[in-house]
Every structure is written in C-alpha cells, then in structure tokens.
C-alpha cells in the first residue's frame, strides 16, 4: 500500500513538473533580452500630489516560437503607471504616441530603444540610479507575464 502511495506521489509530482515545464516552454517562446532603464531622478516636492517624473525602459522582444504574440501592458514598482509609447519624428518635431500593443511575429524580434518604442514610466516611486536595477513585468497576449530585471544605465 505504501509503495502504491509512493508511486502515486511520484507520478503526481512528475505530472505537476511536466505541467510547470510546459508553461515554462510557452513563456520561453517569447524572450525579453537586455532590459534596461534610463537613469532618472524622482523629483520630490512638499506637495504630496506633485508629479514625480517619468522614466523609460527599453528591451528586445524575441519571439522564438511559431505563433505571433504581442506585448499588451507593463507594470513595475518603480512607477505608479507604465505605458507603452513610440517616439517618432514629424514636421521637425520629436513626437510621441501611446500604443496599445507591440506585435512580435514568429521568428522575429522587436527592439524597444531610444527614439523608438519604449515603456514610459509615469510618476516614479524611486530614483533610478545608474548601476542599480528595477523589476519590470511585461504582459504578453499569449505568453502571459514575463518578469525581468532591468539594468539602470
């Protein structure tokens, strides 16, 4: 009886591990490489409601799978809000627009970099000091949540 119980336990553990492994495999199809954040100062003032500043996070999104995916949203504890934006040049100005998704086609990669796509951090909760790191969680349509450590430069 003990042996069958043990066998059941081992089987159960293996099944759970297989389940965990397959969701890892799903996540592994999308990679977030070289995540980094620009250094920034949290602008403090005596007014508790004052806006504390913005920041930017960049990375390379790599879709190593056979199915398209898309970055939908981002959260971080370094700011109250994070949005996805794109900088572009038009009429002699640098402009910016919020984007609701960044599609990453199968086998392709998309770069978030200065002057292009970036994660805009709104209302910093801390200084972003060069050499330190922040935690950022990216939410993908298919892959779900991917948490990364962004190096501050």
């Amino acid at each position: 009886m003990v042996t069958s119980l043990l066998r059941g336990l081992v089987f159960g553990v293996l099944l759970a591990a297989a389940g965990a492994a397959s969701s890892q495999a799903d996540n592994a199809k999308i990679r977030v490489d070289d995540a980094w954040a620009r250094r920034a100062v949290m602008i403090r003032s005596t007014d508790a409601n004052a806006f504390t500043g913005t920041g930017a996070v960049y990375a390379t999104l790599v879709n190593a799978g056979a199915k398209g995916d898309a970055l939908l949203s981002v959260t971080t504890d370094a700011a109250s809000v994070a949005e996805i934006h794109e900088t572009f040049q038009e009429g002699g100005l640098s402009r910016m627009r919020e984007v609701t998704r960044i599609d990453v086609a199968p086998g392709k990669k998309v770069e978030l970099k200065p002057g292009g796509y970036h994660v805009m951090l709104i209302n910093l909760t801390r200084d972003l000091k060069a050499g330190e790191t922040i935690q950022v969680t990216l939410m993908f349509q298919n892959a779900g949540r991917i948490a990364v450590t962004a190096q501050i430069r």
Partner: protein
Amino acid sequence: MATRFFRFAAVLLVGGLLAATTGAAGSAELKSGVFKPARPAPALSLRGSDGTELTLSRYRGKVVALGFGYTTCPDVCPTTLAYLAQAREKLGPAGKDMQVVYITVDPERDSAERLKAYLAGFDPTFIGGTGTPEQLAEVRKAYGIVVARENVPGSKTAYWVHHSSFVYLIDRAGNLRALLPFGVKVEDIAHDVKALLGD
C-alpha cells in the same frame, strides 16, 4: 653634404607640419551639420536653474551645447542629456569647458528648482533655463524650435509637449557652429566639441 641635405629635409618637414596645423580660426572639421558662415548665437536672458540669470554670454570661453526639452519627457530628453553627459565625460579634463544648457518647453511645470533636480541626474554642471511662456517662445523663435502641446486626459502627465530635438553647438566666441540631430552618436558629439574647443 649628406648632413646638409638631411637638415634641409627636416626643416621642410617641420615647416610643412606647422603649416598644416595652423589653419584659419573657425576651420574646425565637424561631424554634424555646420553653420556656414558661423553667426552669433541669438542672445537670451532667462531664469537659470541655479537661481541666477541665465545668459549665453556667461559662458563665453566655453563651448555651449544648447538643447530644448522638459522634465516630463520620458525618452527624447533623457536620451539627449545622457548622450551629452557621456560626451562630456569622454572629453576628460577638456570637458570642464563644455557647458550644457537646457531650456524648458514646459514652463507651467518646469520651475528652476525642478529643472535643477532633473538635470542633476545627468550631470551636476548642466544648467536649465525657464521663464514666462512669452520669454521662452521668443527664444524658441530665435532658435527655430517648434513645439506642440497635446493634452492627455485621464493621465497623471496631463499633457505632453512635443518639441524639436536637435542641439546647437556654440563656440567659445559665442557663434553658432553646428546642429546635432537627435540620436547623434556620443563619439561624434565629443569629436565636434573637442574640435570647437581647439578652434
């Protein structure tokens, strides 16, 4: 006879080298777009982030990198300021004669104190400029800087100010010499500042 020949050749060589290095003042070879002929940088008088009057004549004798932006800008301004800070660092001791001046396009939010805190994150020597909307509009007109405000209802940022993102290089004599486009490489900024410092 051979020694006389070699002495003559040495004089020629040294003379040639001297001629090559003593170019006319204002002949620096720059990587970025140049102003030809160089013309005086339009004067300005604004409220400096250090609490004093900000004028360009204050920095006569230094090379000034003049840019426009605002503290709520998440990508373009931090990138520009980070690159300028890196270029200044690259110059080593010569960097003490490079002065970055950043003028706000958002006077509603960017007080002198706010500019000071923001710029300190990039380099403690950077100076910001603010003033009344009218004063700042005048400076932008003189420098060909375009802005466009966009309200963002429901966002903590309330509005963005899209703006021209190039940077002017002004030489030690106070003349406009070069225009650095957004995204210009750090080594090219350092190269041009160094060239103007040696001019």
